[in-house]
Protein backbone atom coordinates (compact mmCIF):
# COMPACT_ATOMS: atom_id res chain seq x y z
CA UNK A 1 0.00 0.00 0.00
CA UNK A 2 2.86 2.34 0.72
CA UNK A 3 3.74 2.42 -2.98
CA UNK A 4 3.64 6.16 -3.43
CA UNK A 5 1.77 9.33 -2.78
CA UNK A 6 -1.94 8.45 -2.89
CA UNK A 7 -1.38 5.28 -4.87
CA UNK A 8 -3.76 3.24 -2.75
CA UNK A 9 -6.92 1.25 -3.10
CA UNK A 10 -8.76 0.66 0.22
CA UNK A 11 -11.11 3.59 0.20
CA UNK A 12 -14.75 2.50 0.40
CA UNK A 13 -17.09 5.17 -0.94
CA UNK A 14 -14.71 8.07 -1.34
CA UNK A 15 -12.49 7.43 -4.31
CA UNK A 16 -9.92 9.92 -5.49
CA UNK A 17 -6.92 7.61 -5.57
CA UNK A 18 -4.68 6.67 -8.44
CA UNK A 19 -5.55 3.13 -9.50
CA UNK A 20 -3.53 0.47 -11.21
CA UNK A 21 -4.64 -0.36 -14.74
CA UNK A 22 -2.07 -3.09 -15.36
CA UNK A 23 1.53 -3.79 -14.49
CA UNK A 24 4.48 -5.20 -16.37
CA UNK A 25 8.03 -6.15 -15.49
CA UNK A 26 11.01 -4.42 -17.04
CA UNK A 27 14.62 -5.06 -15.97
CA UNK A 28 13.35 -7.04 -12.99
CA UNK A 29 11.34 -4.06 -11.76
CA UNK A 30 7.56 -4.09 -11.59
CA UNK A 31 6.17 -1.00 -13.29
CA UNK A 32 2.57 0.10 -12.93
CA UNK A 33 0.51 1.73 -15.62
CA UNK A 34 -1.94 3.84 -13.60
CA UNK A 35 -5.02 5.93 -14.29
CA UNK A 36 -2.71 8.98 -14.42
CA UNK A 37 -1.01 7.55 -17.51
CA UNK A 38 -4.36 6.88 -19.17
CA UNK A 39 -5.67 10.37 -18.39
CA UNK A 40 -2.47 12.02 -19.59
CA UNK A 41 -2.77 10.00 -22.80
CA UNK A 42 -6.33 11.25 -23.30
CA UNK A 43 -5.21 14.84 -22.71
CA UNK A 44 -2.38 14.27 -25.18
CA UNK A 45 -4.81 12.95 -27.80
CA UNK A 46 -7.16 15.94 -27.30
CA UNK A 47 -4.27 18.38 -27.69
CA UNK A 48 -2.92 16.54 -30.76
CA UNK A 49 -6.35 16.58 -32.40
CA UNK A 50 -6.66 20.30 -31.66
CA UNK A 51 -3.18 20.94 -33.05
CA UNK A 52 -3.95 19.06 -36.28
CA UNK A 53 -7.21 21.01 -36.72
CA UNK A 54 -5.38 24.28 -36.04
CA UNK A 55 -2.66 23.36 -38.52
CA UNK A 56 -5.26 22.56 -41.19
CA UNK A 57 -7.06 25.83 -40.48
CA UNK A 58 -3.89 27.91 -40.67
CA UNK A 59 -2.82 26.22 -43.95
CA UNK A 60 -5.68 27.97 -45.72
CA UNK A 61 -5.55 31.08 -43.57
CA UNK A 62 -7.02 34.30 -44.96
CA UNK A 63 -6.35 37.93 -44.04
CA UNK A 64 -9.82 38.27 -42.62
CA UNK A 65 -10.00 35.36 -40.15
CA UNK A 66 -13.16 33.31 -40.02
CA UNK A 67 -14.39 30.43 -37.91
CA UNK A 68 -11.74 28.21 -36.40
CA UNK A 69 -8.87 30.46 -37.49
CA UNK A 70 -10.34 33.13 -35.20
CA UNK A 71 -10.15 30.82 -32.20
CA UNK A 72 -6.56 29.79 -32.89
CA UNK A 73 -5.41 33.37 -33.41
CA UNK A 74 -7.21 34.48 -30.26
CA UNK A 75 -5.43 31.85 -28.14
CA UNK A 76 -1.99 32.49 -29.62
CA UNK A 77 -2.32 36.26 -29.35
CA UNK A 78 -3.50 36.06 -25.76
CA UNK A 79 -0.56 33.86 -24.75
CA UNK A 80 1.91 35.99 -26.72
CA UNK A 81 0.67 39.12 -24.95
CA UNK A 82 1.02 37.46 -21.58
CA UNK A 83 4.63 36.56 -22.41
CA UNK A 84 5.47 40.01 -23.82
CA UNK A 85 4.24 41.88 -20.76
CA UNK A 86 6.26 39.64 -18.46
CA UNK A 87 9.48 38.90 -20.31
CA UNK A 88 9.87 41.85 -22.66
CA UNK A 89 12.48 41.32 -25.37
CA UNK A 90 13.25 37.72 -24.35
CA UNK A 91 9.65 36.58 -24.89
CA UNK A 92 10.24 34.88 -28.25
CA UNK A 93 12.93 32.55 -26.84
CA UNK A 94 10.60 31.01 -24.28
CA UNK A 95 7.30 31.32 -26.16
CA UNK A 96 7.34 27.70 -27.36
CA UNK A 97 7.94 26.16 -23.95
CA UNK A 98 5.73 28.36 -21.79
CA UNK A 99 2.75 28.39 -24.16
CA UNK A 100 2.94 24.60 -24.54
CA UNK A 101 3.09 24.12 -20.78
CA UNK A 102 0.23 26.60 -20.31
CA UNK A 103 -2.08 24.73 -22.68
CA UNK A 104 -1.08 21.34 -21.29
CA UNK A 105 -1.67 22.30 -17.64
CA UNK A 106 -4.92 24.08 -18.48
CA UNK A 107 -6.38 21.10 -20.33
CA UNK A 108 -5.10 18.75 -17.62
CA UNK A 109 -6.71 20.81 -14.86
CA UNK A 110 -10.11 21.10 -16.53
CA UNK A 111 -10.13 17.46 -17.62
CA UNK A 112 -11.99 16.79 -14.35
CA UNK A 113 -15.04 18.04 -16.25
CA UNK A 114 -14.72 15.09 -18.62
CA UNK A 115 -14.85 12.67 -15.70
CA UNK A 116 -11.12 12.03 -15.77
CA UNK A 117 -8.88 12.24 -12.74
CA UNK A 118 -6.79 15.34 -13.56
CA UNK A 119 -3.22 14.21 -14.42
CA UNK A 120 -1.86 17.23 -12.52
CA UNK A 121 -3.30 15.74 -9.32
CA UNK A 122 -0.38 13.29 -9.49
CA UNK A 123 2.91 14.54 -8.04
CA UNK A 124 4.75 12.55 -10.68
CA UNK A 125 3.34 14.91 -13.32
CA UNK A 126 3.90 18.26 -11.62
CA UNK A 127 7.36 17.60 -10.21
CA UNK A 128 8.99 17.16 -13.66
CA UNK A 129 7.40 20.47 -14.70
CA UNK A 130 9.00 22.10 -11.65
CA UNK A 131 12.34 20.48 -12.46
CA UNK A 132 12.19 21.79 -16.05
CA UNK A 133 11.66 25.30 -14.65
CA UNK A 134 14.61 24.78 -12.30
CA UNK A 135 16.88 23.70 -15.17
CA UNK A 136 15.74 26.67 -17.28
CA UNK A 137 16.53 29.07 -14.42
CA UNK A 138 19.97 27.49 -13.89
CA UNK A 139 20.92 27.39 -17.58
CA UNK A 140 19.80 30.96 -18.23
CA UNK A 141 21.63 32.24 -15.18
CA UNK A 142 24.86 30.64 -16.44
CA UNK A 143 24.24 31.81 -20.00
CA UNK A 144 23.40 35.45 -19.30
CA UNK A 145 25.27 36.24 -16.07
CA UNK A 146 28.23 33.89 -16.75
CA UNK A 147 29.78 31.78 -14.00
CA UNK A 148 31.12 34.85 -12.17
CA UNK A 149 27.63 36.38 -11.95
CA UNK A 150 26.23 33.05 -10.81
CA UNK A 151 28.79 32.78 -8.01
CA UNK A 152 28.18 36.41 -7.05
CA UNK A 153 24.47 35.71 -6.82
CA UNK A 154 25.19 32.65 -4.71
CA UNK A 155 27.20 34.62 -2.14
CA UNK A 156 24.73 37.47 -2.20
CA UNK A 157 25.33 39.69 0.81
CA UNK A 158 28.30 37.68 2.12
CA UNK A 159 29.80 34.27 1.22
CA UNK A 160 28.51 32.85 4.51
CA UNK A 161 24.96 33.10 3.12
CA UNK A 162 25.70 30.63 0.31
CA UNK A 163 24.00 27.59 1.93
CA UNK A 164 20.81 29.59 2.52
CA UNK A 165 20.82 30.79 -1.09
CA UNK A 166 21.27 27.18 -2.28
CA UNK A 167 18.27 26.11 -0.17
CA UNK A 168 16.28 29.01 -1.62
CA UNK A 169 17.15 27.89 -5.17
CA UNK A 170 16.28 24.24 -4.52
CA UNK A 171 12.97 25.20 -2.89
CA UNK A 172 11.76 26.82 -6.12
CA UNK A 173 10.84 23.67 -8.10
CA UNK A 174 9.45 21.98 -4.98
CA UNK A 175 7.14 24.82 -4.04
CA UNK A 176 6.10 25.37 -7.68
CA UNK A 177 5.14 21.74 -8.21
CA UNK A 178 3.57 21.26 -4.76
CA UNK A 179 1.40 24.34 -5.22
CA UNK A 180 -0.04 23.06 -8.50
CA UNK A 181 -0.36 19.49 -7.21
CA UNK A 182 -2.07 20.40 -3.92
CA UNK A 183 -4.51 22.82 -5.52
CA UNK A 184 -5.70 20.35 -8.13
CA UNK A 185 -5.70 17.52 -5.58
CA UNK A 186 -7.82 19.52 -3.14
CA UNK A 187 -10.39 20.10 -5.90
CA UNK A 188 -10.37 16.40 -6.79
CA UNK A 189 -10.79 15.41 -3.13
CA UNK A 190 -13.67 17.83 -2.59
CA UNK A 191 -15.51 16.51 -5.64
CA UNK A 192 -14.87 12.91 -4.58
CA UNK A 193 -16.22 13.68 -1.10
CA UNK A 194 -19.36 15.31 -2.51
CA UNK A 195 -20.07 12.46 -4.91
CA UNK A 196 -18.96 9.69 -2.57
CA UNK A 197 -20.69 10.72 0.65
CA UNK A 198 -23.85 12.44 -0.59
CA UNK A 199 -24.63 9.86 -3.31
CA UNK A 200 -28.20 10.47 -4.58
CA UNK A 201 -28.39 13.97 -3.04
CA UNK A 202 -25.57 15.05 -5.33
CA UNK A 203 -27.50 15.73 -8.52
CA UNK A 204 -27.20 18.86 -10.70
CA UNK A 205 -25.96 21.27 -8.02
CA UNK A 206 -22.35 19.89 -7.94
CA UNK A 207 -22.02 21.61 -11.32
CA UNK A 208 -21.48 24.85 -9.38
CA UNK A 209 -18.60 23.22 -7.48
CA UNK A 210 -17.15 21.97 -10.76
CA UNK A 211 -17.11 25.54 -12.07
CA UNK A 212 -15.11 26.65 -9.04
CA UNK A 213 -12.79 23.69 -8.44
CA UNK A 214 -12.12 22.66 -12.02
CA UNK A 215 -12.51 25.77 -14.17
CA UNK A 216 -11.68 28.71 -11.88
CA UNK A 217 -9.06 27.10 -9.67
CA UNK A 218 -7.51 25.22 -12.60
CA UNK A 219 -7.20 28.33 -14.74
CA UNK A 220 -5.78 30.40 -11.86
CA UNK A 221 -3.19 27.76 -11.01
CA UNK A 222 -2.16 27.42 -14.66
CA UNK A 223 -1.71 31.18 -14.86
CA UNK A 224 0.24 31.24 -11.60
CA UNK A 225 2.56 28.40 -12.65
CA UNK A 226 3.42 30.05 -15.98
CA UNK A 227 3.65 33.51 -14.40
CA UNK A 228 6.09 32.33 -11.73
CA UNK A 229 8.14 30.42 -14.30
CA UNK A 230 8.42 33.58 -16.39
CA UNK A 231 9.25 35.72 -13.36
CA UNK A 232 12.00 33.36 -12.23
CA UNK A 233 13.48 33.09 -15.72
CA UNK A 234 13.53 36.84 -16.32
CA UNK A 235 15.03 37.20 -12.88
CA UNK A 236 17.77 34.76 -13.92
CA UNK A 237 18.36 36.62 -17.18
CA UNK A 238 18.99 39.77 -15.20
CA UNK A 239 18.92 43.02 -17.19
CA UNK A 240 15.57 44.20 -18.55
Amino acid at each position, binding site marked *: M*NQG*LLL*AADSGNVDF*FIHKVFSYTIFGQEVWITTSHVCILIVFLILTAFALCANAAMKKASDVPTGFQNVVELIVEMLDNMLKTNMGSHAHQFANYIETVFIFILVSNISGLLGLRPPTADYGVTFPLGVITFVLIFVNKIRYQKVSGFLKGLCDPWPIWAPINVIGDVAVPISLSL*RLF*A*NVLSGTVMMALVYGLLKWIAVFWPAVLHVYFDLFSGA*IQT*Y*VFCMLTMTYISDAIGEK
Partner: protein
Amino acid sequence: MEFNREFILGCSAIGAGLAVIAGIGPGVGQGIAAGHAAAAVGRNPGAKSDVTSTMLLGQAVAETTGLYGLLVAMLLMFVKPLAN
Protein backbone atom coordinates in the same frame (compact mmCIF):
# COMPACT_ATOMS: atom_id res chain seq x y z
CA MET B 1 5.50 0.77 25.04
CA GLU B 2 3.66 -0.84 22.11
CA PHE B 3 0.59 0.88 20.63
CA ASN B 4 -1.96 -0.94 18.52
CA ARG B 5 -2.84 0.15 14.98
CA GLU B 6 -6.25 1.62 15.87
CA PHE B 7 -4.71 3.96 18.45
CA ILE B 8 -2.14 5.20 15.92
CA LEU B 9 -4.81 5.72 13.26
CA GLY B 10 -6.94 7.71 15.69
CA CYS B 11 -4.01 9.90 16.65
CA SER B 12 -3.21 10.34 12.93
CA ALA B 13 -6.76 11.60 12.36
CA ILE B 14 -6.39 14.11 15.21
CA GLY B 15 -3.06 15.19 13.75
CA ALA B 16 -4.65 15.64 10.34
CA GLY B 17 -7.31 17.85 11.89
CA LEU B 18 -4.64 19.93 13.61
CA ALA B 19 -2.62 20.18 10.38
CA VAL B 20 -5.44 21.84 8.41
CA ILE B 21 -5.61 24.63 11.00
CA ALA B 22 -2.81 25.97 8.78
CA GLY B 23 -5.65 27.14 6.54
CA ILE B 24 -6.40 30.08 8.87
CA GLY B 25 -3.26 32.00 7.90
CA PRO B 26 -3.75 32.01 4.12
CA GLY B 27 -7.46 32.81 4.64
CA VAL B 28 -6.63 35.97 6.58
CA GLY B 29 -3.83 36.87 4.17
CA GLN B 30 -5.95 36.42 1.07
CA GLY B 31 -8.72 38.49 2.62
CA ILE B 32 -6.32 41.33 3.36
CA ALA B 33 -4.93 41.14 -0.20
CA ALA B 34 -8.43 41.21 -1.69
CA GLY B 35 -9.43 44.14 0.52
CA HIS B 36 -6.42 46.19 -0.51
CA ALA B 37 -6.99 45.29 -4.16
CA ALA B 38 -10.60 46.48 -3.87
CA ALA B 39 -9.40 49.75 -2.34
CA ALA B 40 -6.84 50.15 -5.14
CA VAL B 41 -9.49 49.59 -7.83
CA GLY B 42 -11.70 52.14 -6.04
CA ARG B 43 -8.95 54.75 -6.20
CA ASN B 44 -7.89 53.96 -9.76
CA PRO B 45 -10.57 52.07 -11.74
CA GLY B 46 -8.48 52.23 -14.92
CA ALA B 47 -5.91 49.80 -13.48
CA LYS B 48 -8.51 47.14 -12.68
CA SER B 49 -7.04 44.33 -14.81
CA ASP B 50 -3.48 44.89 -13.60
CA VAL B 51 -4.58 45.02 -9.97
CA THR B 52 -6.68 41.88 -10.37
CA SER B 53 -3.90 39.82 -11.94
CA THR B 54 -1.36 40.96 -9.35
CA MET B 55 -3.83 40.16 -6.56
CA LEU B 56 -4.54 36.69 -7.89
CA LEU B 57 -0.83 35.94 -8.26
CA GLY B 58 -0.09 37.08 -4.73
CA GLN B 59 -3.03 35.18 -3.31
CA ALA B 60 -2.00 31.99 -5.07
CA VAL B 61 1.50 32.28 -3.64
CA ALA B 62 0.14 33.03 -0.16
CA GLU B 63 -2.05 29.96 -0.43
CA THR B 64 0.98 27.66 -0.52
CA THR B 65 1.46 27.39 3.24
CA GLY B 66 -2.15 26.36 3.73
CA LEU B 67 -1.74 23.75 1.03
CA TYR B 68 1.27 22.31 2.83
CA GLY B 69 -0.96 21.79 5.86
CA LEU B 70 -3.53 20.14 3.62
CA LEU B 71 -0.85 17.84 2.18
CA VAL B 72 0.27 16.79 5.65
CA ALA B 73 -3.34 16.04 6.55
CA MET B 74 -3.77 14.01 3.37
CA LEU B 75 -0.62 12.00 4.05
CA LEU B 76 -1.72 11.27 7.62
CA MET B 77 -5.24 10.29 6.59
CA PHE B 78 -4.70 8.28 3.42
CA VAL B 79 -1.07 7.18 3.06
CA LYS B 80 -0.88 6.40 6.83
CA PRO B 81 2.93 6.61 7.16
CA LEU B 82 2.85 6.00 10.94
CA ALA B 83 0.62 2.93 10.94
CA ASN B 84 2.58 0.77 8.52
